[in-house]
C-alpha cells in the first residue's frame, strides 16, 4: 500500500469521527433553551410579569439583555419564561400527532380493506387542506389556550404520521420473519406489538424528530395570531405579536423573540437530521 493512500484513508476516517461544528452549536442552543424551559431562574432573577413603567421601551443593555417592553418588563426574562410554555405546547402537539397517527396507521396497515380505505381517504382530506387552516378551524372551535393550541397543531400532524406508519407496517408485515412468527403460533396482536411495531417505528420516530421544529413554528404562529395563552403570560408567538405595534421605535421587541424561535427551530432540525442518520441511515 502506498503512503499516500494510507494517509488519505486515515484522514478521511478522522474527519468522519469529528462532530460537525453546526451540530455542536445546535446542541448547545437546544440545551440552553431546554434548561431555560425547566429552570428559568438559573438565567434571570427578575419577574417576567413585573412592570416598571419608568424603564419602558429601553433598548438592549447590560441590565436588560433583550431590552424592555411597553410596560417596562424585561424581555430577556419574558423570553426565558416563555420557553417552557412554547416548548411544552409544541411537544404535546407532536405527541398527539405521533400517537394518534401511529395508531391510525397501525390499524389501517393491519386491517386493510374497507377500514384502510376509509382511514386513508380521511388522511387525504386532511392533507389536502393547508395545515394552518386546519389548525385555525380547530382552535376556533375549541377556544383559546395552550392545550387547545397543542390539539389544533397536533391534529394537522396525524395525517402524515398515519401515512408513514401505514407504509412501514405494510412493508414489515410481509417480511418473512413476521410470517415465521405466525407459523410458530404467535397470536396476531402479539406479532403486531413484538415484531411489526418495533421494526416499523424507526422511520416514524425519525420523522417525529424532524417534525418538532415545524410543530414549534405552528404553535408560535397560533400564538402570534392571538389564539394561544392570553396575556400577560409570556409565550414566544404572542411576544412577537405584541412587539409589532412598537416596531418603528423598538425593533428588539419583535425581532429578538423571533430570532429565538428561529434559532430553536434550526437547532432542532439540525439535531433531528443527525439522529435520522446524515447519510440516510436510520438510527438503530
Amino acid at each position, binding site marked *: *500500500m*502506498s503512503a499516500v493512500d494510507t494517509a488519505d484513508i486515515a484522514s478521511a476516517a478522522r474527519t468522519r469521527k469529528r462532530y460537525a461544528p453546526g451540530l455542536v452549536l445546535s446542541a448547545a442552543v437546544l440545551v440552553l433553551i431546554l434548561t431555560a424551559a425547566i429552570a428559568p431562574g438559573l438565567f434571570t432573577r427578575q419577574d417576567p410579569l413585573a412592570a416598571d413603567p419608568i424603564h419602558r421601551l429601553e433598548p438592549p443593555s447590560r441590565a436588560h439583555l433583550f431590552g424592555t417592553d411597553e410596560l417596562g418588563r424585561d424581555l430577556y426574562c419574558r423570553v426565558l419564561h416563555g420557553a417552557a410554555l412554547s416548548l411544552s405546547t409544541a411537544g404535546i402537539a407532536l405527541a398527539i400527532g405521533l400517537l394518534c397517527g401511529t395508531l391510525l396507521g397501525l390499524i389501517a396497515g393491519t386491517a386493510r380493506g374497507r377500514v384502510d380505505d376509509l382511514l386513508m381517504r380521511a388522511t387525504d382530506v386532511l392533507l389536502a387542506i393547508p395545515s394552518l387552516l386546519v389548525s385555525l378551524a380547530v382552535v376556533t372551535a375549541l377556544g383559546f389556550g395552550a392545550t387547545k393550541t397543542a390539539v389544533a397543531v397536533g391534529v394537522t400532524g396525524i395525517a402524515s404520521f398515519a401515512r408513514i406508519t401505514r407504509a412501514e407496517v405494510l412493508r414489515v408485515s410481509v*417480511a418473512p*420473519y413476521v*410470517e*415465521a412468527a405466525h*407459523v*410458530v*403460533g404467535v397470536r396476531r396482536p402479539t406479532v403486531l406489538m413484538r415484531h411489526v411495531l418495533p*421494526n416499523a417505528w424507526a422511520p416514524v420516530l425519525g420523522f417525529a424528530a424532524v417534525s418538532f421544529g415545524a410543530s414549534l413554528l405552528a404553535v408560535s404562529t397560533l400564538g402570534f395570531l392571538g389564539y394561544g395563552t392570553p396575556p400577560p403570560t409570556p409565550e414566544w408567538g404572542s411576544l412577537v405579536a405584541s412587539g409589532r405595534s412598537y416596531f418603528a421605535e423598538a425593533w428588539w421587541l419583535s425581532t429578538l423573540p423571533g430570532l429565538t424561535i428561529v434559532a430553536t427551530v434550526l437547532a432542532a432540525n439540525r439535531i433531528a437530521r443527525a439522529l435520522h442518520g446524515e447519510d440516510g441511515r436510520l438510527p438503530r
Partner: protein
Amino acid sequence: MTLLDQPLLEVQGLSVCYRTPRGARRAVRGVDLHVAAGETVAVVGESGSGKSTLAHALIGLLPNGGYRETGSIRFDGADLTALSERELRALRGAGIGFIPQDPSASLNPVRRVGHQVAEVLRIHGRIDRRTAAARAVELLDQAGVSDPSLRAGQYPHELSGGLRQRVLIAIALAAAPRLIIADEPTSALDVTVQRRILDHLEKLTHETGAALLLITHDLGVAADRAQRVVVMSGGAVVESGTSRQVLLEPVHSYSRHLVASAPSLTTRPLVTCPSAAERSDGESGDDLLVADNLVHEYPAPGRRSGVGLRAVDAVSFRISRGETFALVGESGSGKTSIARIVGRLLDPTRGRVLFDGKDITAARGGELRALRRRIQFVQQNPYTSLDPRQSVEQIVTEPLRAFRLGDRQDRAARVRTLLDQVALPAALLRRRPSELSGGQRQRVAIARALVLSPDLVVCDEPVSALDASVQAQILELLVTLQDELGVSYLFISHDLAVVRQIAHRTGVLRAGRLLEAGATQEILTSPANAYTKELIDAIPGSRALSD
C-alpha cells in the same frame, strides 16, 4: 506460435482494496492469472472470495471506493493499468466483452433490446445506424434468441430471465471481443436454462475463437466448462490447475473442502433410500401427511371471476413418519405454493391435506394453532426470516412463549439443548441476527422450527441462499436431526443435486403438475419422464465426472 506463447490476458500480483470508514479493506490479494487465446478459464470461489472484484478490476470498472493497489494487468501485450479511461472505454466491448451477473438488472428497462445490442456496434464505430439494427437481429439470433426480429423490438421486462441473459451475451459478443469475462452468468437462472445458456456460450466462443474467463461459485459448472480452474478464497488464489486436476486431486485444503461439499459433485447420499419392498408394507398406516389432489389457482388479474393462473394442478403425495420427501422443480413449477398450502399459509382452491389422518385443509382458530405445534416451516432466506431486533435467544424461545410452555428456566434449558443440537455455541444466545453468518442464521431458523418438537418440518429451499460448503453442513445437520428426533421433512428445492443427497423420496414438478414421484435413487437412475431426464442432465459437474 509466438502468439500462443504469450497469453492473451496476464495478471500479476494484482491486489484490490476498498475504502471503508475503518480503513482500507483488501478484497483481492496478489492474484496471478493468465488466459491464453481461445481458452476457457474458470475462477471459482464462495461469496466474499473476491472473484467478482477481480472480474471488475480487470476491465477497470471497480465500484466506488475500490482501487487497484498493486499488480499489473496485460491484455494482448498492452498494459491495461497504464491506459486512460478513454482508451479503456475503447477496449471494453471491442477487446474484452463482459457478461454481468444479474440479467434482470443489467438491461436498460426503457429501451428496446435490439437497440441496446446495436448501441455497442455504434459506439465502437463498426457500423452506421441503419445496418446496426439489422446486425443486432443477427447477433440476437446467434446468441440463441428465438424470433430475433420480434425480440429486438421488445423491452427487457417482456423477456424471461433466460432470454435476457442471451441478450446480454449478444451485447458482450457484438463487437467480437477476443476475451469474454462472464461474472456468474447463470446463477440467477433455472438449471435447465443454465445448461442451455452455457452450452451456447461454449459453442459461440469456440466458433469465434474468443477466450472465456468464467467467474462462478459452482465448482460443477467450472469443471464442466473450463479447461483450467482457479480457486479463490479470501481474495487470494489458493489453487489452480486443469479442471480434472482440481476436481480429482485437489491439493489445497480449501479446494478439497470445496470439492467435497459441492452438491453436484458428490453422488454419496446422506440418507439411505428405503427399498421398494420396505415401502410397500406399511402403506397407509404410517402416513403422516397426505396431499390429495391439490389445486391452487391465482385469480386472473383485473377480473373478479374467471380462472387465472393454475399454479398447482392436481398434485397428490404422501409423507411417512421420519421420512424426507422432496419436491423438485424450476421457478414457476408451483413448489412453493404447495409448501405454503401444507404449512397452512395458503388455502388450496380444491383438494385436501390430511395430517395424521385428520383433514386440516380448513383448520382455523384453535385447531390451526394446535397444528402449528406439529407442522413447522424453515424459510428460504435466513437473512430475512429472523427479526433483526431480537436476540437469538428471543427468536428461539418465541414459539415456547407463544404456547406458554414451561417457565423461564425450562425455556432457557430447552433453548440451550437446541442450540447444541444445531451445533451453535451458547455464546451466540445474546447476539442479534445481523451479527451471525448466513449458515449460523439458518441454524437459528432450524432451531426455532424444532423447539416445539414438531412432526413435520416444511423446508422451502433452505439452502439455496447459502454457499456450497455451508449448504453441505446444513444438509448434514438436517439429516442428523432427523435421525435423532424422527421428524419428517417436506423439502422444496430447485436443485436435484441437493435433493439427491437428502431425500428418501422425490417428486418432480413442472408447471404445477407432479410428473413423477418415487424413491430418489430410482428417479435418478431410471427417470420415467423426459423432463426429469433433462433436469438430471442439467446438474452441473455430471459431464466432468463422466469422462
